[in-house]
């Protein structure tokens, strides 16, 4: 790894400083200019900082893809695992070390296509961990292939005449599969995203937060969505905060994505059930 000049030391004013949480020797990170994943990473670290999570008690697991690389910049226990399997890995990790705060960073392709199976079953099991699904509607790192969340008619390297496939709504899928906390927020609303992530990490059970992120270099360029500021501002046009859901005239605002906490349910957490069962068996004198 080539050496980089250390960033300057800054005075402190009591606000969140992301440099406390970064592996400074790896910065600047590898992501393209204007990529929303950096903002999402800031929101995650900010949330962890406000929750006063100890770095040693934190495990961040990520898969392959642009989203997978974001975990590598966090100065904590991070795991970079196989494509689509961060949830499988994290499930094992959480079962072995229930004391850890487990956060999974995954992308739309990683979680919904290649690891779709693991996504469904993680939601079903309701193990106490947090999935951050960075949705940029494309496989960015591998060259810009179509993903399950690519909007219809949009161009990618594998859909040169436009995407014909219908889209997955990750939040609907997660709710249907049984996740007990489901939320969505756009990177434009960083403080809101931070608050949502705080709620999600504090939630006892499996929580899914879909983050609307931008791929400016591939998806934006191929689809003529404008430069980075234009793309991030476009989020504002399309999003519709959940709190306003009942007050907005639905027919007049096509193709919005709801933001905020979309579902919060109470269901037994996997480890609680597991512990209760083992306790009962132990009292019986061991299971047969």
């Amino acid at each position, binding site marked *: 790894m080539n050496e*980089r*000049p250390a*960033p*300057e030391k*800054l*005075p*402190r*004013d009591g*606000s969140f*400083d*992301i*440099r406390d949480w*970064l592996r400074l020797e790896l*910065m*600047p*990170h590898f*992501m*393209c*200019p*204007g*990529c*929303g*994943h*950096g*903002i999402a990473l*800031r929101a995650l670290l900010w949330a962890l900082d406000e929750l006063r999570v100890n770095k040693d008690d934190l495990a961040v697991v990520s898969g392959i893809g642009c989203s997978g690389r974001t975990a590598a910049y966090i100065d904590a226990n991070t795991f970079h695992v196989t494509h689509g399997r961060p949830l499988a890995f994290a499930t094992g990790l959480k079962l072995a070390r229930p004391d850890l705060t487990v956060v999974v960073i995954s992308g739309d392709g990683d979680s919904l296509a290649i690891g779709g199976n693991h996504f469904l079953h993680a939601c079903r099991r309701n193990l106490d961990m947090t999935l951050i699904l960075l949705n940029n509607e494309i496989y960015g790192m591998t060259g810009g292939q179509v993903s399950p969340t690519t909007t219809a008619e949009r161009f990618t390297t594998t859909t040169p005449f436009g995407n014909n496939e219908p889209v997955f709504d990750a939040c609907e899928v997660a709710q249907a599969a049984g996740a007990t906390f489901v939320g969505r927020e756009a*990177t*434009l609303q*960083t*403080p809101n995203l931070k608050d949502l992530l705080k709620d999600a990490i504090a939630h006892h059970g499996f929580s899914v937060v879909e983050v609307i992120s931008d791929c*400016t270099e591939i998806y934006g360029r191929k689809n003529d969505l404008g*430069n*980075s*500021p*234009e793309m*991030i*501002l476009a989020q504002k046009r399309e999003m519709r905060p959940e709190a306003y859901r009942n007050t907005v005239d639905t027919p007049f605002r096509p193709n919005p994505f709801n933001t905020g906490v979309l579902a919060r349910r109470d269901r037994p957490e996997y480890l609680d059930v597991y512990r209760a069962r083992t306790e009962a068996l132990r009292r019986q004198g061991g299971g047969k």
Partner: protein
Amino acid sequence: MAETTLNDDAGAENAEATAARPTNVLIVGVGGQGVIMVSKVMATLAQRAGFEVKQSEVHGMAKRGGGVFSHVRFGHKVFSPTIPRGEVDVLLALEWAEGLRWLNHLNRSRGTFIADVKRIVPPFACRNRADGAPLGYSRETPKDVLSRVRTGYALNASGMAERLGNPRVANTILLGVLSTALDFPEEEWLAVIEQFVPPKTVEVNLRAFGEGRDWVARHGEVGPDEEVDFSPPAGLETPPRRPRVFIERAWCKSCDICVKMCPERCLELDEAHIARMRAPERCTGCRLCEYLCPDFAIRVLRLPQDASEEEASA
């Protein structure tokens, strides 16, 4: 005692013109304060007394906290529903700055100015978002204003209403003050108020009305400042903190987000397409650039004013 009948000071006007001229009451305030309720009471009262009444209002601003006004005109014959500028006999303001805004509608020679000194700072008075920036809100004290009107009352009706246990009856207290400026019997006022307020609050409203009348009886024509708390609006006294933007040049990837998103247009890209501060003095420390920088290159610090200059120049 301030039993000012409106038409007694008509001056050069002859009796016939005085009798023909309608009485004009302008009620102003901020959405949600009860401007419309006051004007309804006023209009019903005049109607019960056998006058012809015309009323016109702007409403629906309650959600946005915007200004609301209502014209009430009554007399033997009223032609237009709106009051011409300079013809208002009684200006009843439920909010201080709204009262000042409409002051030029008040008749100089016979007008009565009644205002609550409650201040509701509108959003556009906070356009300068820098810490410690002055609010664009009126600095005029009740003394300044009352010296310029013929009859004026400035009272802390909201404070009185809170002491009565319901801050929402401030408008009824002002109605009590208004009742002393017009020629209607007190029982009539009470009957009409009872008709318009929610049944559960009749009792407190009637007490509030009495409170307003008592206030005038106690203080005479011009309300002294003793009950008026007119310290500068909150926000002026916060210690200013100087925002400083630090940019890690090696981390910037020229994505332009900070430049385009800065509400004060403080940033620009230099010759090497790296973000830099163009106008540090305009920075309000809102941190939007820091939040939205995907490369963590921007750090905004809100340092106390006395931070050393060498830190600041970094």
